């Protein structure tokens, strides 16, 4: 009886959350936050990829913005300059970015820890420089505008209302798929690699190949997010993909918890909210805050803020239940 009650409550909770999300873009509800939520959804997709990469293979990426930007620019160039259908552009961008990640994957993963981090930093910067300098293609430092919207037949995703659902449909799909992967033998292999690479090899896990696959996955996700970004803003600009952008992505992953999928929503949400609030009131203090967040979280809760909050919540729940059973 108690178990059934508990299950009803959790179904109710999930239904409430879903209802909340569905109602957000309505003007009479939280409509003015629609654009913010769209960005949170887009950045969640990148963050999930980054969490998978950093949390499960223990590799740091200080250049994830490179993949994010590749997706954005390839989509922008294909759809605006060459008139390719935006969906097709998105797919081509994802394939190109994934292939690029595959090519750099094997050499990169022969590096360890610090070297790897620096390599990703270097790659991120190289990409950013290319975005700025290859002006015939990318529009240079001013970027490109006039990028079309996504559309299905006659239904154009132009209003923020429609774009909200488009982005969050993608986001939800990404979250569920990632959840499935983590619970599967692939996820176990990833966690094994994180636990002990030597032992993982001994039971037949091709460690390097897995790391490359996850890098490719994170790159494809970042690329999808980048494409969604440009089809949302109709505009692309290299500043969105600079070093600080890669750092902000790491902040999102760290706040969410490096090995937590759903934490990515939390991480992206908190960080975007912070940057919206901070940008308005304390211009320029955002990077100070980010720096502080990174240092404090990695010292006191290296599994991520979200994960730590879950732990505290669990502990409180246990204590509450204990008190309940005492006469």
């Amino acid at each position: 009886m108690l178990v059934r009650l508990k299950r009803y409550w959790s179904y109710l909770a999930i239904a409430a959350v879903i209802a909340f999300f569905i109602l957000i873009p309505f003007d009479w509800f939280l409509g003015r936050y629609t654009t913010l939520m769209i960005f949170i959804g887009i950045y969640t997709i990148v963050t999930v990829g980054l969490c998978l990469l950093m949390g499960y293979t223990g590799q740091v990426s200080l250049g994830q913005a490179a993949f994010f930007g590749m997706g954005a620019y390839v989509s922008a160039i294909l759809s605006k300059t060459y008139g390719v259908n935006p969906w097709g552009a998105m797919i081509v961008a994802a394939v190109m970015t994934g292939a690029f990640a595959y090519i750099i994957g094997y050499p990169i993963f022969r590096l360890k820890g610090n070297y790897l981090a620096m390599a990703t930093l270097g790659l991120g910067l190289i990409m950013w420089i290319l975005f700025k300098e290859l002006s015939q293609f990318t529009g240079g430092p001013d970027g490109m505008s006039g990028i079309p919207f996504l559309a299905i037949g006659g239904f154009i995703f132009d209003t923020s209302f429609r774009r909200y659902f488009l982005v969050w449909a993608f986001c939800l799909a990404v979250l569920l798929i990632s959840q499935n992967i983590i619970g599967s033998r692939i996820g176990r292999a990833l966690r094994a690699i994180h636990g002990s690479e030597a032992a993982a090899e001994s039971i037949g896990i091709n460690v390097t190949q897995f790391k490359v696959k996850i890098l490719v996955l994170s790159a494809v996700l970042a690329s999808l997010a980048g494409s969604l970004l440009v089809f949302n803003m109709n505009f692309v600009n290299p500043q969105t993909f600079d070093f600080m952008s890669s750092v902000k992505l790491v902040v999102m992953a760290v706040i969410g918890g490096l090995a937590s999928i759903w934490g990515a929503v939390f991480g992206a949400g908190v960080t975007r909210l912070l940057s919206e609030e901070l940008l308005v009131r304390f211009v320029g203090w955002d990077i100070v805050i980010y720096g502080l967040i990174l240092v404090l979280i990695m010292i006191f809760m290296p599994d991520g803020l979200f994960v730590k909050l879950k732990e505290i919540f669990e502990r409180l729940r246990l204590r509450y239940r204990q008190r309940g059973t005492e006469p």
Partner: protein
Amino acid sequence: MSSAQFVQYLISGITSGSVYALVGLGFTIIYAVTKIINFAQGEFVMLGGLLSFTLIHSAGLPAVPALILSIIIAAAIGAVMYLLAIRPAQKASVVSLIIITIGAAIFIRGIVGQELTKSFVRPPSFSGEESISFLGAHIDPQALWIIGTMVMVTIILHLFLTYTMVGKALKACAINPVASSLVGINPRTMALLAFVLASAVGGIGGVVLAPFTPMSYQSGVMLGLKGFVAAAIGGFRSPVAAVFGGLLLGIVESFAVAANWGPFTSAYKDAIALVVLLLILLVRSGKLAEEERAG
């Protein structure tokens, strides 16, 4: 290319290379003693430059005290960074430490940007602006200060590490932390010393560089990266190799821009360092893979 141009590019390369060498020295010192890559290394160079400018312009200090104070402040910030951000996380994973030093780097950068200035600054040159003629090339005297300072720092560092008790202790700690702790050398004190030294060296770099090339609160990123390349060439073990690496990078950069290969405008100059970085890492990864398997 005429011989005068050659000398010009060479000196230019050696000048920027000297700065990279100083940054690389900092990376090497910290890594050798603590096995940590301090991603904030570039920020100390930036601090040296911006602090010296602020002290001279806003605080009205005369040049020499301003320079010395800038270096001391940079070193102090390095110490504080170690004590507050690194030491509490001693047991952390490599990933965590990397993120921590990045966090510290952007924290420092942000504070400087907010509290000092966001624009490019250029303190006065040490000995005037008039260029010196040498083998047909025109050399900014500040460039000579930069090269000379790098040489001085390298020599003093070498003497320090080889002939003083503290220096030898530092070296011992770098070579074998366990054994040196057994003979009474405290690894945490050595780590603190390493951070102080590295940030001081970085600060010195910034102090001599800023009059030559204007710097802003964002300059630390590329400087840090290039210093890393310098240290990587040196394998993170040998200060002298880091110096060599820095000079090599500076010269390659200079001549690559001079040669004007294809799309290599000076905007791509930074990209050159990055490509060199990736090439080195590729080569090293091959060697690393060998070492790994040799267990």
